[in-house]
């Protein structure tokens, strides 16, 4: 769920080195005014930094020691992250900006606390008042004795000098001056007016007091416009008049899915009772966010039911096309909101020692990876634990930790803190692993499927704040995950015997070499026996099952859409059987023409061998028809199978004809 972008969007990307809440830049004010040093002293006495403890230990490993000497002295030696400012509004009662607390909900760093200028730290007690869209929180803390609340001015005057007090950029409490320039109605409904002021405000200022020239509080500093020195403060009267013992959650948001162009704006208005201590407050708040996220996501899916795959423009073409790719892809909208199974972006790969290859890419803002093992390689990918798994992935996916002006490559995240298995809508077993990434106060998440030659999956870094909701949205992408399953015969044998990670669609799958050295592949809709006369297989040979989405009535299934058997990964000789479902009228010309050619056994589906002598390429394509007899256009079956034989070297046409004949002889395709 996205809330007000101007003060919270940064959370998605920010590094905690800048976990100083309140946004961007400093522009010095031209207006000079004076507050007496006495006032300054008293203001400093009641204004505190809001801090959270730093992670005590680093579970990560790097390719070189962290150059901590590049960090500023204070940051290097501080045991706390400074995240904002708070000030006293009564005995033991403090206020800060709501988003200062929200930024550390679910944080790995522990609950926020107050720190005075002498470095004393006071834990936050109870949250007593909270409003998400007014963006304030009132809480108790066992602060230092004798903290006297500042006087309050509920009727400040425009054009008068003001002073922004706060922990700017983590430098401790400082005071900067400017003017009360104007007012801006609250964005949602104009229920109150923000104070706009020109006193400089910097990251860390959030939650600090805005004072008049007499040192009286007129507002709580909230945020600033990104490009101008016109900062925001909430009038202090809104805080003081707010009802005690109530948290108000009132947010506009836009619900969206990464792979869907359609979005759904919404508004959530909820309340819960206070006081609660911080962990209770955090869980109550996150519960609401979770519920609202689920509700709006359900509404999004209901609202756009006619646009979601397998309905919606472009779906017919996706359903009528079988993709052969062992690197995964996500189904999703293209720019014109047509469903597509497009190639992912930025595919790159690296071979790592142990015969393992890591390929990575991204699509719809989600990372995709494939971790594959060469035949007979030393590393057994099926057995790697979470630490070894991520260590390998980090070899392919560059993750850099910024330290001062340097960046250091992360080489290990250690053991995952969560490691479990979940099933998606199609019976695929997803291994979910989560590692804390304390240096960004976030988590690395992988959702992966075991495949015969390794693992494929999704990878994403998610900030701790709003983690669960973001994780749920990521998990929705599992149902759009498209990938072929491939490996050598020994790899398949191991894969199929490890039942915990085997998709339910493979329960009835048989894939093995029999005593006559024939390869048998049989799934519910396809059964083939490949004799050595057609193609001789050995332990080097690769079998790829083209897994695809198929409609059976109204039900969307995930099943075998084709088989590709490659004699030797380094050579061209192969046999493939690929299902072509009868395309619907919406599937587009390309598929429709292809279907007509298949039904009519026209070229290239005419069982005549073809040669491209310059490319040293020789092949033949025939058709297998589930109805047994040859179909006509009038009684075309629900699917036909394209059978292709490819030869490595200079063969004669009849060699390929024979290869095709032998393949077709022991091929049975059905259509459910």
């Amino acid at each position, binding site marked *: 769920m996205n809330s007000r972008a101007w003060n919270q969007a940064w959370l998605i990307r920010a590094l905690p080195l800048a976990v100083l809440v309140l946004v961007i830049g400093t522009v010095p004010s031209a207006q000079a005014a004076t507050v007496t040093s006495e006032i300054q002293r008293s203001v400093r006495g009641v204004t505190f930094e809001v801090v959270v403890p730093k992670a005590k230990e680093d579970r990560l490993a790097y390719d070189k020691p962290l150059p901590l000497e590049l960090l500023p002295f204070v940051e290097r030696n501080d045991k706390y992250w400074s995240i904002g400012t708070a000030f006293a509004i009564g005995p033991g009662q403090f206020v800060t900006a709501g988003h200062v607390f929200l930024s550390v909900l679910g944080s790995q760093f522990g609950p926020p606390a107050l720190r005075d200028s002498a470095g004393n730290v006071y834990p936050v007690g109870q949250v007593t008042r909270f409003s998400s869209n007014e963006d304030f929180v009132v809480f108790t803390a066992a602060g230092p004795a004798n903290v006297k609340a500042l006087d309050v001015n509920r009727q400040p005057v425009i054009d008068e000098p003001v002073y922004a007090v706060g922990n700017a950029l983590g430098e401790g409490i400082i005071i900067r001056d400017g003017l009360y320039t104007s007012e801006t109605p609250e964005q949602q409904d104009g229920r109150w007016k923000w104070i706009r002021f020109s006193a400089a405000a910097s990251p860390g200022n959030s939650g600090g007091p805005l004072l008049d020239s007499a040192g009286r509080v007129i507002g709580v500093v909230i945020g600033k416009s990104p490009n101008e020195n016109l900062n925001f403060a909430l009038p202090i009267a809104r805080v003081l008049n707010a009802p005690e013992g109530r948290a108000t959650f009132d947010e506009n948001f836009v619900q969206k899915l990464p792979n869907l162009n359609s979005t759904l704006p919404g508004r959530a208005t909820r309340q819960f009772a206070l006081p609660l201590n911080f962990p209770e407050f955090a869980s109550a708040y996150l519960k609401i966010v979770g519920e609202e996220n689920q509700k709006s996501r359900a509404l999004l899916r209901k609202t756009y039911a006619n646009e979601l795959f397998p309905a919606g423009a472009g779906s017919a073409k996706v359903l009528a096309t079988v993709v052969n790719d062992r690197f995964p892809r996500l189904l999703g909208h293209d720019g014109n909101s047509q469903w597509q199974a497009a190639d992912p972006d930025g595919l790159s790969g690296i071979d790592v020692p142990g015969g393992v290859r890591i390929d990575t890419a991204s699509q719809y803002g989600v990372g995709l990876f494939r971790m594959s093992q060469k035949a007979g390689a030393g590393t057994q990918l099926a057995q790697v634990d979470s630490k070894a798994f991520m260590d390998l992935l980090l070899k392919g996916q560059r993750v850099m930790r910024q330290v001062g002006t340097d960046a250091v490559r992360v080489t290990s995240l250690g053991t995952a803190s969560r490691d479990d298995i979940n099933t998606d809508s199609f019976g695929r077993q997803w291994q979910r692993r989560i590692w804390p990434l304390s240096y960004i106060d976030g988590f690395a998440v992988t959702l992966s499927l075991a495949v015969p030659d390794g693992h494929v999956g999704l990878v994403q870094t998610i900030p701790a704040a709003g983690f669960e909701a973001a994780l749920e949205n990521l998990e929705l992408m599992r149902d759009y995950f498209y990938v072929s399953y491939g490996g050598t015969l020994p790899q398949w044998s191991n894969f199929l015997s490890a039942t915990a990670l085997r998709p339910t669609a493979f329960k009835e799958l048989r894939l093995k070499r029999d005593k006559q050295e024939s390869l048998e592949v049989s799934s519910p809709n396809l059964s083939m026996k490949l004799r050595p006369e057609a193609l001789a297989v050995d332990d080097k040979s690769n079998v790829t099952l083209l897994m695809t989405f198929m409609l059976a009535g109204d039900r969307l299934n995930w099943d075998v859409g084709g088989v590709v058997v490659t004699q030797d990964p380094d050579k061209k000789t192969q046999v493939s059987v690929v299902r072509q479902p009868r395309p619907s009228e919406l599937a587009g010309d390309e598929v429709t023409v292809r279907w007509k050619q298949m039904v009519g056994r026209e*070229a290239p589906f*005419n069982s*005549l*061998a*073809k*040669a491209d*002598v310059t490319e040293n390429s020789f092949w033949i394509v025939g058709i297998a028809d589930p109805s047994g007899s040859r179909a006509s256009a009038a009684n075309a079956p629900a699917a036909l199978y394209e059978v292709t034989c490819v030869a490595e070297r*200079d063969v*004669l*046409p*009849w*060699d390929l*004809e*024979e290869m095709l004949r032998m393949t077709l002889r022991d091929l049975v395709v059905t259509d459910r």
Partner: protein
Amino acid sequence: MSQRYQSQLCRCAGALGLALLASGLTIFPIGAGASEDRLQQLRSYYRALRQQTWQLYESANMLPRDIRGLTIADDLRAHGLTREKARSLDEQLAAAESGAGQDGEALVDATAMAVTTQLLGEVGRFTEIANYWTGSGVAVRARDNWTSFLKINGLPEAQDLDPAIPVLEKRLLEELQAGDFRAAGRVSAPELAALYGKARMTLTRQVAGSRSGAAPVRDFRNRSAPCTTPSPQPPGGPAYPPTSRRLSQEGTVVLRLRQSPEGCTVAAAVVISSGYTALDDAAVDWALQTPADPGEARGPGVERTKDLAVSFKFEDE
């Protein structure tokens, strides 16, 4: 009028390449030079034969079935470089190559000679198959064409055919059955095609006389473009439709032309079909695009109708 064309198939089938291959082999100097070089040369001839086989095989997509209902791929599969023959050549060449450069020069020579003989035989047979399939008029299904010619022109099915035709057909089938593509391709098939062509022409002439003034078999089509300035050049013939040329379709179309007082053809109809719609269409298109002919002008107010025969025929090789 009559036009002469050259069959495209004669060129596209690569017969020329094969002729070169064959002549290269006949002058191949057995026993001369280093054995490796000779083997290498043999190997390259063998490779050329395989490539030619592929080319001709792939033309099965373009060529119609012949009088037996078979394709060129069927003949190549059964009578060309079969799997067995290829295996034998592969083995002999491999054996010769493994012996080359060692003591077995004599053995290599003997093998090279055997391979050469076999290759020559294969090349010869291949050339005859190619010739049968690509020679003018042979690839067509002669009897089917005759039947469709009669049907389009609304003529009775029972016609007095030259008694030589069924005899020749029988002979051709026997030759093909025996794999004698030389006799079939060089003699029987061209003769049969010529006899059918003659029969069509004879019938066309007969009918043309009887149909003078009678209704055409296909209606008049009007000229769409205006008549251009009278051209001083004699009008050329119609363009041979590429598909018809590829399929070795020949024939004569009789057109009926309506001409304006200026000698411009304003409408044309098919009086007697060639038996092929594509040729008929090409003739009508051509007639409606020819410029006005001042020689045909009959003066103000006088329109004229005349019949014109347009022939599509390949040049004799």
